[in-house]
């Protein structure tokens, strides 16, 4: 599904990713682990198409298509979803209104018919209760005044609603206490499906106790320096990034 070859990405003229290779198949959950400044967030932004992340070399193929050529909203409609580390606040736009606009924009882009307000409301309510997203939250302005946990739950709710093909979770565990983390992880696990790939980006091993990946890649200094199964996370936890990076060199 996702095939990244020799990806070089510069931000503001500074090279952050320096020849990254990564392949993720449908139905799989891959984790990207790495220390601060290794390029984890850059990878998530370049996949989602944020402006200012310049691909200087290499390619990103998504279901055989050149992902880099597509504007972000087209990527979204084609099933690329990025659960952001810092979800953005948009005053005055209610969460429900936002969900409806985004869902229908994606449907339009795919040539599907728009869903009516009542249909969307029903769907959202059903999925919201599972994630403990209250009715009252849906009425509030998007992310405005939400706690860290509420913001992350809302991201996962959107993931459940949009049913993406490739879900990228950027530091979804940051700022969550253990109960919130469990709730979010349950939400994510519930969305594991044969047709869906997930890329879980995290600094810490603890998220991977709850979302168990098929494969782990260690990102350091803009490259994948180590790969392995889920046991690699434990090794990382024991040895620390510095040692793993040294071993790999």
């Amino acid at each position, binding site marked *: 599904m996702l095939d990244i070859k020799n990806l070089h990405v510069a931000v503001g003229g500074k090279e952050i990713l320096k020849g990254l290779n990564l392949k993720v198949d449908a139905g799989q959950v891959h984790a990207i682990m790495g220390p601060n400044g290794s390029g984890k967030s850059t990878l998530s932004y370049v996949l989602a198409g944020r402006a200012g992340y310049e691909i200087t070399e290499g390619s990103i193929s998504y279901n055989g298509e050149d992902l880099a050529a597509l504007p972000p909203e087209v990527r979204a409609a084609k099933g690329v979803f990025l659960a952001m580390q*810092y979800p*953005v606040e*948009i005053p005055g*736009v209610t969460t429900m209104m936002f969900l409806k*606009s*985004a869902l229908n924009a*994606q449907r339009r882009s795919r040539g599907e018919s728009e869903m009516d307000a009542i249909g969307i409301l029903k769907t959202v309510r059903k999925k919201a209760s599972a994630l403990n997203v209250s009715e009252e939250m849906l009425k509030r302005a998007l992310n405005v005044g939400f706690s860290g946990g509420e913001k992350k739950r809302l991201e996962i709710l959107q993931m459940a609603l*949009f049913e993406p093909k490739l879900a990228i979770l950027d530091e979804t565990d940051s700022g969550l206490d253990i109960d919130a983390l469990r709730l979010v992880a349950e939400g994510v696990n519930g969305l594991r499906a044969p047709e869906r790939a997930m890329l879980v980006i995290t600094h810490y091993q603890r998220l991977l106790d709850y979302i168990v990946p098929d494969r782990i890649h260690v990102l350091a200094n803009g490259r994948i320096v180590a790969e392995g199964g889920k046991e690699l996370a434990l090794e990382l936890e024991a040895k620390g990034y510095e040692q793993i990076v040294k071993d790999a060199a």
Partner: protein
Amino acid sequence: MSSAALETKETVAGLGEKYKYGFVTDIEMERAPKGLSEDTVRFISAKKGEPEWMLEWRLAAFRRWLSMKEPTWARVHYPTIDYQNAYYYAAPKNTPLKQSLDEVDPKLLETYKKLGIPLHEQMALAGVAVDAVFDSVSVATTFKDKLNEAGVIFCPISEAIRDYPDLVKKYLGTVVPVTDNFFATLNSAVFSDGTFVYVPKGVRCPMELSTYFRINASETGQFERTIIVADEGSYVSYLEGCTAPKRDENQLHAAVVELVALDNAEIKYSTVQNWYPGDENGLGGIYNFVTKRGDCRGVRSKISWTQVETGSAITWKYPSCILRGDESVGEFYSIAIANNYQQADTGTKMIHLGKNTRSRIISKGISAGKAQNTYRGLVSVYGKAENARNFTQCDSLLIGGECGAHTVPYIESRNPSARVEHEATTSKIAEDQLFYCLQRGLGQEEAVALIVNGFCKEVLQQLPMEFAVEAQKLVGISLEGSVG
């Protein structure tokens, strides 16, 4: 060319199409001779079949105007207006003095249909009565009979001068005096049509009233005058809309609106102003120099202004409230959008005279392109306004680094028990907000419209439901091409 640059270019090319009301109706017109003199004033008065007192009132205004100077304090710039090089009266030929809808020229009915304002009552928006003003005359007024049953007078002002002279005399010029300002005095001399509304004691007006102003003729100014009087304990909600053809010339629109609310009465006045704004290079567009004022004359009366200002090359407009009656309430909710080369200088005055008077100002200014957008407002508390309260929130949003957003609030208090609070912020559409929306599948323009509508929400909520949706769309359309 990069894809982003190409996209921007295409968007800009598409801009010419965005003003969908820019067409011209081809209809035979009758005009006053070009220029402005006492003869012009007499011509207009005669055309309207006005009584002598009205003509004298106009002539006094005209003489006064000759000695006045055009104001320059607003942050707007435009070439000197040649007042002699314009027409002050233009009306479709054969406009009957008292029209029934069957007599209205089909071309006019077609025009209003195209503008989204069907005038045939069976097709009209349920619950909304319309007075349709085309250049210098009212061409149709709907639901007059139904309103008459409730005792509500809703008619063109020229008709009111003939049919209800005592009421007109009682209120005309009492809120905006003839001498008020250069444009208001000009209007007093040459006003042609507009709407007169009188809601009798204790009556809650059974439907929304609205006037739709259309400028059609070229080289012609529109000078409408509207008076709304809400007698004791009555309520009325009124909405005006405005459009004009796309032309390279600038046309003047200098209106005067006077509102009077007596004891326990309430007037809600909403404007969706979509005059032609000029093209993306700043060519053409309407000069909208308007004086609007409401007088809360009675105790516990209330006047609420809501405006969505998206059109006009220049907007110069300060709908105000004189809070004379004890416990009276004034409100001003405003969205002003200026894109391309538009200039807007708009705001309000809240004059607290009575005890326990309250006012609230919510202003949302959006600047894009090379536009300049100014909020200018006065909150003045007089010595006798015990316990007066004002709250003002004034937010500016900038889109791009070539535009300007300015805030000029005046706060004057002379009463220690009064409380006045003012807050202002300036922000831009953050790159991360935009990216977030795009990532969730919204297109660029859709995302901008969504964010801006969120920014404006408190004001949009004030509009009557029938018009809120239209206004939301207009907010989006007005900003097309502003982010690229």
